[in-house]
């Protein structure tokens, strides 16, 4: 029984009630969806979207594949991995054209990503594809690798300490404490999976393509609005996420703008994806040993 979440079922006023599962709490990285909800884009497309924010560990892919949510947010690498394991989800809209994944470090010594792995301690979440990529590229033999603990306290407390980050999040937090981190995007190193990808289950995609299409259109409008003026959606999200202040919201929204809106999206619209990029990722995942053989990327994403 996988579709009991009422995907697309009509609500009182004829709108389809759907659930969008986030993989983190309300932050600018989801700003477009809140904008779509607040400014009526979802309503315009006859959607009644319930946004479900979650903790860092929520199993979004499994929930979408299992039908507990109609839409979810994930990354291209995770989507391909999930498909390789039999969790058939499809990416339909990519917020980040360039991955906001980065390494931040402190100290004069460090001028490049290579310097990060020359000595000291680096905090990386175990199992992440990009950490495998960095390992392959730079080798981890000169540094101590510790698990990313979800915070930034140690970054400030310890010298010669680098850690993974989202360019829109941790660097801003430590800057507020007076530190000046050096931030290196993983995308610049050659690993650049789409991030903030809206996913649906294969079943939903096949049976309710129309609904999915409406969702994508609404999201695109919402994101455009958010890029134009994030303040209103930020205000809404700030109420839901009290750990972050208004200033941080604004800075984060600014910091991510270039990663979302690129020359390509100017052409094809926000959220666009290309088969080339997906194939590159698939190849890289095989090289990194995350998956045994490259999944068929044609089924993994859909351009609307």
């Amino acid at each position, binding site marked *: 029984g996988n579709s009991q*979440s009422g995907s697309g079922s009509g609500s009182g006023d004829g709108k389809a009630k759907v659930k969008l599962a986030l993989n983190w*709490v309300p932050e600018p990285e989801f700003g477009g969806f809140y904008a779509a909800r607040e400014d009526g884009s979802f309503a315009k497309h006859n959607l009644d979207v319930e946004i479900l*924010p*979650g*903790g860092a*560990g*929520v199993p979004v892919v499994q929930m979408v594949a299992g039908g507990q949510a109609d839409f979810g947010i994930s990354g291209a690498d995770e989507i391909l991995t999930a498909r390789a394991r039999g969790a058939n989800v499809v990416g339909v809209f990519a917020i980040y054209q360039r991955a906001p994944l980065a390494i931040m470090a402190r100290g004069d010594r460090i001028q490049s990503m290579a310097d990060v792995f020359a000595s000291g301690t680096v905090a990386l979440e175990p199992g992440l594809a990009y950490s495998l990529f960095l390992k392959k590229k730079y080798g981890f033999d000169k540094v101590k690798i510790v698990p990313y603990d979800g915070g930034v306290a140690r970054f400030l407390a310890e010298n010669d300490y680098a850690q993974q980050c989202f360019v829109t999040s*941790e660097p801003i937090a430590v800057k507020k404490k007076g530190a000046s981190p050096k931030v290196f995007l993983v995308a610049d190193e050659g690993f650049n999976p789409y991030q903030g990808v809206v996913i649906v289950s294969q079943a939903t995609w096949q049976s309710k393509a129309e609904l999915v299409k409406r969702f994508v259109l609404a999201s695109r409008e919402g994101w455009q609005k958010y890029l134009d003026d994030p303040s209103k959606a930020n205000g809404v999200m700030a109420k839901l996420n009290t*750990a972050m202040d208004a200033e941080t919201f604004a800075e984060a929204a600014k910091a991510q703008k270039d990663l979302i809106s690129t020359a390509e999206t100017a052409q094809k619209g926000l959220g666009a994806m290309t088969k080339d990029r997906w194939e590159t990722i698939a190849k890289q995942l095989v090289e990194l040993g995350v998956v045994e053989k490259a999944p068929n990327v044609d089924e993994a994403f859909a351009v609307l």
Partner: protein
Amino acid sequence: MRDAPSSLANSLFLRTARSAASKTLPPFVALVVFLLTWEIGVRWLGVAAYLLPPPSAILSAAKRDAINLLMGAWTTAKTALFGFALSGVLGVLAAVILSSARVIERAFYPYTVFLQTVPIVAIAPILAVWFGPGFLAVSVCAFIVSVFPVIANTVTGLRSVDPALKDLFRLYGASRWASLVKLTLPSALPNIVTGLRIAGGLSVIGTLVGELFAGFSEGAPGLGIVVQTAAKQLKTDLLFAAVFSATFLGLLLFGVVNAVGSRVLGRWHPSEKLDQSEIES
């Protein structure tokens, strides 16, 4: 002469007040001393506030974010309480079944350890898919984290029944049910209470962790989410305010278990007996 009753009432009042004071004063004094030491220690040693903020900073963060903390605490409390109740009921039940025959105990008791060692990350997807994300799934996390101490303590209690009393019940042909209700469970009560004392704290931490893995909430994010977001934003003061809110929930459960425990155990069990000195004075 006419003052006698009122002076009696007075002394009774004084006594009650003194007894209440003797119960609430020590933890209060301890708390104050502890917080002062912390405040001074942190300032003196120059511990960075983003590692360990002084209590004053935590307090002002708590004031600043009072509403969110309260709402978060409410979300977490509901969930933890339900998980705790599940642990209490199912834990005692499981222990009773385990103790019903040596073979069953031998066969299954060891595997209950699994409940204690399984990381939530491993089962969160199953829970989220089976129970739907949110309240129920998180409660089940709290249950899984907190049930083993109830089982282990109840099993010890059920096993420790005075063999002579067992003989007595056997002699009078008591049914299994009667023996359980009238002998074994009452004998095991002190142990069950201890199990619940432990389960109280564990159900709170189980909820905090569960919220990160199986909790979705639009309205009021639980304390677990507050802790995680505060860590990410380096709001260590808020983080500790949330941690202490969680501890406060744990303390509430602890207090409730203690109160119910000493009511039920009453005067008969030595673990609840007052000191000689307290009787005398």
